[in-house]
């Protein structure tokens, strides 16, 4: 294999991987801290995509700029959903296992609701817009500018979030809660606020990923679930509850997906599932798991 | 007869040596105590005996038969039952149902439902829980939960009963009652192997005691020998 082809596969893989890493981190915040395996995660991606799409088509707003607008909105929706639904569910559940089960079911309900609402608003047809679709030449390989920009932004968001997590007080509270909710509470962390914050941040990541996705791909209200599945696999791959792990998991999946695509297109998803199942059978705690 | 024998028991968890070359035996009909500081490996030893954990090396013989590597349910059916340090009851099931399950599944030969019911009610009385058959296990007091766990273990018709910190968390009165129950069990012909921290109780009821420290057996003998053994005194009082 020529080094150029190898580089091509690598960069292409990292581009998707960057996106996957973003949504994986989002889900990891929701599961690792708030203990909600949110199967409607992908629907927030879809909402972000359509929000950016609508802002562009209706008001001509630059998709990258729209991140600033759609972000807080989606964060707020996520935060609200946690406060009203999952917080109450946590109170009602007899055990953590019971809560994980019932919150899983509740998030299925959310999936149906959000998807249906999106279908009602935007209809089932494929939609898309053109933004930065010119191609850029790097070392002989050709990439769409929007993908490069999306990757750049994904990295930027991840860096900002990393800084937030490591350097700010709130970030420390989140990391504490991710390790042990009870102890964090004893240490004075306002846990319910942190749980809601994490859930909202998870939705925010999804929203951002969705906005970036809309720049690169065509969208329909049904794009959510495949992304959710990739996020779940990435989170398990990196180790349930480990935020950094899910980022790495997302990158790995992006790379593997691209490699598989070169060997035989259409097998990527199957490859993901096989990795997923083998992982669960052999080392369910994942790469960085305890 | 030696009802239980452990030869060269070794258990490693990755790089951690939890149990190192422990040899011990229990005579049929006696009460053998197992003591040692926290982390000495007492519960680990129980887990190895009951089949919860697999041995790294060594042999366990029960009633002369090599039971190394058998699963817990197989060992139970052969006549060894246990209780747990943290009570593991079927919380959302009734007291009677908890005991009934032990009776229905705990033996090699089958049993009719009506007989199982009769036996379970008798055991209820034996441990002092008469009249509580309809109460959910999770609604019992801690002391009663421990009695229930013993009753459930007894329902499997064991010849050897492993008690893991049966008296932990009990008031002095409850401890006396617990001692009484253990003696009643011994009088029924059941051998008892018990882990305990409540020293007074241990000394008054055990025939012999073995002492574990950092996974090794450092002393063995009758209670008087143990209480005067300098090594034992040191590990409990030394920093």
């Amino acid at each position, binding site marked *: 294999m020529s080094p150029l082809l190898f580089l091509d596969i690598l960069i292409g893989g990292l581009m998707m991987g960057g996106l996957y890493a973003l949504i994986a981190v989002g889900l990891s915040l929701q599961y690792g801290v708030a203990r909600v395996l949110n199967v409607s995660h992908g629907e927030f991606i879809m909402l972000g995509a359509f929000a950016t799409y609508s802002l562009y088509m209706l008001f001509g707003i630059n998709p990258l700029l729209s991140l600033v607008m759609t972000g807080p909105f989606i964060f707020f929706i996520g935060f609200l959903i946690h406060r009203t639904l999952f917080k109450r569910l946590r109170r009602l559940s007899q055990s953590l296992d019971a809560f994980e089960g019932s919150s899983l079911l509740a998030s299925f309900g959310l999936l149906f609701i959000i998807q249906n609402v999106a279908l009602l608003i935007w209809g089932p047809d494929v939609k898309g817009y053109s933004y930065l679709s010119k191609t850029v030449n790097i070392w002989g390989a050709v990439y769409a500018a929007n993908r490069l920009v999306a990757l750049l932004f994904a990295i930027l968001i991840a860096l900002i979030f990393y800084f937030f997590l490591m350097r700010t007080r709130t970030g420390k509270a989140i990391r504490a809660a991710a390790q042990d909710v009870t102890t964090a509470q004893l240490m004075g962390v306002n846990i319910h606020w942190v749980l809601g914050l994490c859930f909202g941040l998870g939705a925010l990541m999804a929203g951002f990923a969705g906005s970036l996705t809309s720049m690169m791909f065509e969208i329909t209200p049904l794009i959510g679930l495949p992304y959710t599945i990739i996020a779940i696999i990435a989170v398990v791959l990196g180790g349930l509850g480990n935020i950094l792990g899910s980022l790495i998991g997302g990158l790995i999946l992006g790379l593997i997906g691209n490699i598989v695509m070169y060997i035989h297109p259409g*097998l990527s998803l199957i490859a993901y599932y096989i990795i997923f199942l083998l992982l669960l059978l052999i080392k369910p705690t994942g790469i960085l798991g305890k | 007869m030696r009802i239980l024998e452990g030869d060269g028991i070794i258990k490693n968890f990755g790089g951690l040596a939890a149990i190192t070359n422990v040899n011990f035996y229990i005579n049929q009909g006696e009460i053998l105590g197992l003591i040692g500081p926290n982390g000495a490996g007492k519960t680990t030893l129980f887990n190895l005996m009951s089949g919860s954990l697999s041995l790294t090396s060594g042999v366990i013989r029960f009633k002369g038969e090599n039971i190394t590597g058998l699963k817990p*349910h197989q060992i139970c059916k052969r006549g060894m039952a246990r209780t747990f340090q943290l009570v593991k009851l079927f919380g959302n099931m009734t007291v009677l149902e908890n005991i009934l399950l032990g009776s229905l599944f705990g033996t090699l030969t089958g049993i009719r439902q009506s007989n199982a019911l009769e036996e379970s009610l008798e055991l209820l009385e034996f441990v002092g829980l008469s009249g509580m058959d309809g109460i959910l296990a999770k609604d019992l007091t801690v002391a009663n939960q421990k009695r229930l766990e013993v009753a459930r273990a007894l329902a499997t018709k064991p010849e050897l009963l492993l008690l893991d910190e049966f008296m932990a968390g009990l008031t002095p009165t409850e401890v006396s009652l617990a001692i009484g129950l253990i003696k009643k069990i011994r009088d029924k012909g059941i051998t008892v192997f018990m882990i305990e921290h409540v020293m007074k109780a241990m000394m008054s009821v055990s025939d012999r005691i073995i002492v574990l420290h950092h996974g090794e057996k450092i002393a063995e003998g009758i209670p008087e020998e143990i209480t005067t053994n300098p090594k034992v005194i040191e590990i409990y009082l030394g920093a």
Partner: protein
Amino acid sequence: MKRAISKKILYPVLLSFIFIIMVMMPPYVSPYTIILLNSIFMYIVLTVSWALFSGPTHYLSLASAAFFGIGIYVSAILGDKLPLLVVIGLGGLISFLLALLVGLSSLRLRGMYFTIFTFGLSELIRHSVQWWEVNRTGTVGRWVIAVDHTTVYYVMLAILLITLVVTYIIKHSKYGLALLSIGESEEAADHIGINVNAMKIITFAISTFFMGATGAIMATRWTYIDPSIAFNPLFSFMPVLMAIFGGIGHIFGQILGAGVLTLLADVLLTKFPYYYMLLYGMILVIVVLFLPKGLTGLKEEAKKWLKVD
């Protein structure tokens, strides 16, 4: 206040009566009703068999679609070569065997891990069959030999009856009690002589037998099937929702949940096809929040209220 007739006599008589009505019904009702009843029977079997294992043990399986789909494909592939009843039996048998395999391999998985494993497995099967059809056989989907609705009705009724009888027997035997204990504390159950692994695997496999058999007969109503129909994840989610909605702890609750929600889906699909998912989602959220014990739980709550008076 003593009942005039004891429960032990009343219930079997009532049930036999209902069964006889069901058997006599087809000539007197419209084809539409028969088709609807077939759907209801199908979902009752899926829900009750799902709950047989997942109910007491709390191992939430999301693989029902896989076993149901296998039954469908057995019917599609062998439907024109073998008699109908053999095909149905095979659908159940192959599901059973696959379930044994799945159970043996996923033994150590607990809680959420087990659930996502079963979901991943089901999806893997769906995508694999799809890939196979696209890349190897060239055609996606198959035609199924059609069977008239009334025959489907009687077969489904028979499967339903067998499923209910088997489930009832297991539930009220010592094995039913043992399954509950596994859900409470697996380690304790193991230590009182219950072969936990064997019991989990066998019960899981038995439950999938009925799913596979149901798939084999219901395939005939679609005439054309492809992987997205046969292995549709909805067949995994719906039984869970229906069991929780009706009351997962009792067979009656499971039947009620499946019946009510299937009827509701039918009404919604005909009257509000664009809002069907939305309403379903809302029901799911409401049930999880306010009805953790399902409809039968409501009955218990009502009883408590009345007794207090």
